[in-house]
């Protein structure tokens, strides 16, 4: 398979997905950002500086951990890529350090971001403090309520959390407000997109900053097992942890790449976030992608117990990888995720993020498909400490 170096093209297209469907006012800023990324993205000093910060400050490389008891329980070799051990408790730090460093080089002095779970907002607040850049984080009012822990953490780091009251008051509306703010402040502000979504160059740039996960994973699994994994399973919200761990395996066609979306209360209810699996092509937040939308093209409200997966769209590269059959797309319900959450906590002493629990839930449901000698890598994208309030609510009536 011949994939590397071809996507996205100069206009930011992954096949027919992606692109730059942005208001005119943002076009010069997006062009400026693309040029800066094209320059620094291949600059060795920039890469060195980037990785040095991730090493010293965030503790990279993160372990690829053989989960013995879980493996026994599942019936194959299960490894966890421990992104939860990053500073900040999630993979989000890789992207924010990369973008903030780039913004700094571009002479921007302020950061603005959207957040759903609060993980990306928290990560952006970390980068803001680290680089001394005042940070504003837009967050849906509903998410502010269900992720109070992260709101407090952002505030402690000096970020300003701005409640978003428009639309469904969740992640997509936080992106709308963040972009609106950026439209009025492009001259000194960098918009720090939290996933591989949005107009070009974001899907490319965020992927490149998150690829550190997959590069490490490949080196680690070859060291540990002397062979490539059978499958890599990640949860998909916007898709940054998934593309981060998967990209460097795309041309290894024997490695199954599996993405798990949030089925909420069930894939046949109207309360889910299965954009890749059930969405229709459309344009939102600057990119052509699969979207959950009504017949007229208005975006639907989505749902998941995990705020980080609660988004009506999905990264354009995942849409493309799905269409060319390189990415297998599945989903897991709230209930399955909560059970997976509990299982990992009990078996391994690791509390996973509810988002990451979706990836685990897929493995638990499909354990019969894997043989004893198969190697499965789960991208444990984040820690579940942020989810404890939610878990408490569900623990009595949901978990078996």
């Amino acid at each position, binding site marked *: 398979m011949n994939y590397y170096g071809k996507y996205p093209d100069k*206009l930011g297209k992954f096949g*027919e997905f992606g*692109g*730059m*469907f*942005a*208001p*005119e*006012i943002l*076009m*010069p*800023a997006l062009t400026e950002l693309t040029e800066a990324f094209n320059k620094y993205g291949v600059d060795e000093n920039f890469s060195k500086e980037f990785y040095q910060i991730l090493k010293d400050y965030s503790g990279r490389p993160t372990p690829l951990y053989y989960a013995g008891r879980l493996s026994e329980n599942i019936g194959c070799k299960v490894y966890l890529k421990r992104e939860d051990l990053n500073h900040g408790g999630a993979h989000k730090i890789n992207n924010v350090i990369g973008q903030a460093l780039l913004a700094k080089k571009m002479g921007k002095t302020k950061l603005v971001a959207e957040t759903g779970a609060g993980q990306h907002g928290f990560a952006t607040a970390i980068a803001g403090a680290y680089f001394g850049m005042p940070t504003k984080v837009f967050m849906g009012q509903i998410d502010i309520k269900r992720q109070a822990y992260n709101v407090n953490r952002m505030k402690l780091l000096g970020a300003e959390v701005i409640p978003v009251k*428009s*639309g469904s008051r969740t992640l*997509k*509306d936080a992106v*709308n407000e963040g*972009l*609106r703010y950026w*439209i*009025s402040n*492009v*001259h000194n502000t960098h918009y720090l997109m939290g996933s591989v979504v949005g107009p070009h160059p974001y899907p490319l740039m965020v992927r490149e900053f998150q690829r550190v996960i997959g590069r490490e994973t490949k080196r680690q699994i070859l060291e540990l097992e002397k062979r490539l994994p059978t499958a890599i399973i990640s949860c998909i919200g916007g898709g940054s942890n998934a593309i981060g761990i998967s990209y460097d395996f795309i041309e290894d066609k024997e490695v199954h790449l599996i993405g798990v979306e949030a089925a909420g209360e069930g894939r046949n209810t109207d309360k889910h976030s299965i954009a890749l699996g059930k969405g229709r*092509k*459309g*344009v*939102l*937040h*600057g990119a*052509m992608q699969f*979207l959950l*939308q009504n*017949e*007229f*093209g*208005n*975006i639907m409200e989505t749902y998941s117990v995990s705020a980080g997966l609660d988004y009506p769209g999905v990264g354009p590269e995942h849409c493309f990888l799905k269409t060319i059959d390189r990415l297998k797309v599945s989903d897991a319900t709230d209930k399955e995720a909560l059970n997976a959450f509990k299982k990992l906590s009990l078996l391994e002493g690791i509390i996973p993020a509810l988002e990451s629990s979706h990836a685990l839930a897929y493995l638990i449901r499909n354990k019969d498909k894997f043989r004893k000698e198969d190697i499965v890598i789960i991208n444990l994208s984040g820690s579940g400490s942020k989810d404890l309030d939610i878990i408490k609510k569900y623990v009595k009536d949901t978990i078996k």
Partner: protein
Amino acid sequence: MPFLVAGDPSLEKFKELCVAIEPFCDILEIGIPFSDPIADGPTIQEANVRAFKAGITTTRALEGIKDIRSKTEKPIIILTYYNILIQGAQTIEESLDKTFKNLKQNGVDGILIGDLPIEEADLALKVCEKYDICLIFLIAPSTTEERLEKILKSARGFLYLIAVMGITGARSRVAQITKDTIQRMKEKTEEILPIFVGFGISSPEHASTIINAGADGIIIGSAMVNIITKNLSDFVEMKSEMVKFVSSIKNAMMALQKHNSRS
């Protein structure tokens, strides 16, 4: 040129408002609501929400436009977002074809797409040509000369100059950047396309200032919608205040015209 959102505050009232202000405008600009209008400020977002609550759909909006078409000869321009236009068939191309055919049949003369820059406009330009609808482009103070040239090659009707570096919303005065941008853009576009200026205009004084700076027309959106928002409980008052407002703008424009033709 006034702007209203189709279906705000309801489809019937919206149509009545359009008919009432029609004598005072040169072009009618109508928004087809989208759930996620990223280039719009709170005023127009709220108008969208009101329209959705009142049951607007793209189909109903177009029926409303058809009605208005039967009552006026003036050009009708719609403003929307790309996703609204690419629905209804298997492929994007087929969907665009179907939508634009429909727009034409309902009497639309031009269209402005808030999130479709020239770089992504090839398919839309093709259907616009096929159905003889003007694809109107936005330009901003930040639009570079290189991109302006590209835009001028494809744009039709007029250029919509965004007066400020920001989103829609009424503002209390005309910024220097607006005047400078009008002059800079006018030098490049003279004899190619007229420039209409929008985003933030809220009074006859603004309108005059902008025309004096060299613009060929003005577009008033949020200030119109504010009149709706303010008078939701009294439609008679809403309508009369809106008519008063657009006629005051029209008078200011006429006064300028007289003044300019005399000097």
